[in-house]
């Protein structure tokens, strides 16, 4: 009796482990690849349906089909969510925390929230049929963010931006301060002359952000001071765009250089004993794929390391 329960448990644990591997995509094999492609295409189809459904003519003609498609998608996404929660119990072995630690981590992660919020409101509608459909559609739209799980380049981008978060926050801080300052000033200067466009500071803030974004805030100033303020705001808009661009450029450059340095270290290590084994070659190739480096980049690094070794008189 005890033996059979352990056997059953280990079997179910094995399945759990396998499902976790497939859904998580950490181990790349055919099943996880197929699962990824399936979910990604289902999400793309969902987004297309949401867009098409909003066309009144199409909605009247194919409304039922859209509804059936949504129903099937919700069922699949629900199964996916439940499987994810269940299999995440395997993330940490028993010693490192109970099975609920991995589950909690998933449920409260950004992806977990997206998975939940993009699926569950459908059931709410079943319970409360009178709910506003527009809110429901908005939640359905969240499904598009499920795609970002499969875009590793997005991770690169966020990683690059995160490493420069101080510069970003200082740019944002500058924007915030100038927003408060300039909208108060324009309200004080022009508020009397154009009460219909600058009736309050929040209204002036709207003007400020529009000027920053598009270069013209839809309002022409009538006083000389107002003109000066508008011109300064426009120059600020250009400066802010330049600052943001510079920060992004630095972030990316730093990231690429970091990766090249890591790769170079690896090449040096591989070449240290003078021979490149098949295993080492595969490792380098995996690294290249992970970092998204071109063959040319890789060759340049290899050449450089080789030339350095030659210059030092090593084989």
């Amino acid at each position: 009796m005890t033996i059979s329960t352990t056997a059953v448990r280990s079997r179910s644990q094995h399945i759990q482990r396998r499902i976790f591997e497939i859904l998580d995509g950490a181990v790349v094999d055919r099943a996880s690849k197929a699962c990824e492609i399936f979910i990604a295409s289902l999400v793309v189809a969902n987004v297309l349906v949401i867009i098409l459904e909003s066309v009144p003519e199409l909605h009247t003609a194919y409304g039922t089909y859209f509804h059936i498609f949504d129903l099937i998608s919700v069922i699949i996404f629900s199964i996916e969510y439940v499987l994810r929660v269940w299999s995440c119990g395997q993330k940490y072995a028993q010693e490192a925390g109970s099975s609920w630690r991995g589950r909690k981590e998933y449920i409260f992660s950004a992806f977990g929230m997206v998975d939940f919020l993009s699926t569950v409101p459908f059931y709410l509608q079943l319970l409360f049929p009178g709910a506003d459909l527009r809110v429901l559609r908005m939640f359905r739209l969240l499904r598009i963010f499920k795609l970002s799980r499969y875009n590793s380049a997005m991770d690169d981008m966020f990683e690059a931006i995160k490493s420069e978060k101080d510069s970003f926050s200082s740019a944002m801080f500058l924007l915030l301060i100038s927003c408060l300052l300039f909208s108060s000033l324009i309200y004080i200067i022009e508020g009397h002359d154009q009460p219909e466009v600058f009736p309050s500071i929040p209204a002036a803030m709207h003007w400020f952000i529009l000027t920053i974004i598009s270069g013209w805030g839809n309002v022409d100033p009538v006083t000389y001071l107002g003109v000066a303020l508008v011109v300064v705001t426009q120059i600020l808009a250009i400066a802010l765009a330049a600052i943001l661009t510079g920060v992004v450029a630095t972030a990316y450059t730093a990231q690429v250089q970091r990766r090249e340095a890591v790769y170079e270290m690896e090449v040096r290590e591989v070449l240290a004993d003078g021979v490149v084994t098949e295993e080492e070659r595969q490792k380098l190739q995996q690294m290249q794929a992970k970092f998204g480096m071109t063959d040319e980049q890789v060759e340049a690094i290899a050449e450089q390391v080789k030339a350095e070794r030659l210059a030092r008189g090593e084989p």
Partner: protein
Amino acid sequence: MVNDLKRALMEILEGSPKYKVSRYVEWLITAVVLINCSAVILDSVPEIHAVHRDFFHELEFWSVMFFTLEYGLRVWSLGAKFGPMAGGSWKGRRQYIFSPFGLIDFFATMPHYLHLFFPTLDLRILRVLRLLRILKLSKYNTALQDLFRAVSSERRAFGSAAFLLLIATVVSASLMHFAEGHEQPEAFGSIPHSIYWSIVTITSGYGNVEPVTKAGEVIALLTGFLGVCMAAIMTGIVASAFSNQMSRKKAAYQSQLRLALADGNISSAERDSLKQLQAKYRLSDAQVQVFIDEADKKNVQ
């Protein structure tokens, strides 16, 4: 004898620095292409077309002859690219014919003959294809190739930026449809309609339709701000790609220089190869001098 000629012709047409003629050939082709493009532009002005019609016709005929000759010679001479061991003479030819440049050369010239066989063909398509000739110039523009290489080394970053742009467009269009669809059905009546507004707002910061609801205003401002961020991301990626490419080139040149200096003196062969490398990477003399000084300093130490 024929093989030597073929090889020499290939190197001349490929722009090898070994032959002085190759530079003149390059100039000649560039000049013919520029004259052709000017002719296509001028020919579209009705008054000029009425007066100089015959001249343009002549010019087109002789240009097509010239380009046909060029294409034929290229295909023939590229047979020498790979020896009989490395794949035979057709390997190099096939490589050229199906390369972007080969396809451009083909489609910029051959439609003229189609016109001879089918005189009823729509002339406008023919004219558009004639404009393809300007792309022949890109073969001689190494800076353009650098640009493509830099961009392709950051293609993943571009991919993620494009993905972000797509998400931003779809999400902002849908939100706008939900917020303003009832108030302004002519502009936001469906999501495909609002997508046009989204793209205008992201690219220019100011949409073609003004929102009337408070929620719509907030969405419009956020979309515009996202547009500024997208422009910053794109520009930043390009800037970073160029700067990384430049530092890679410098590093490669430096390591070659160090190699040449390793035995204490620079032989004339080494000097030549360094000169070629400098020209290929388009490093200025001042930059090279800095590298040499650095290497000298290290050697003294």
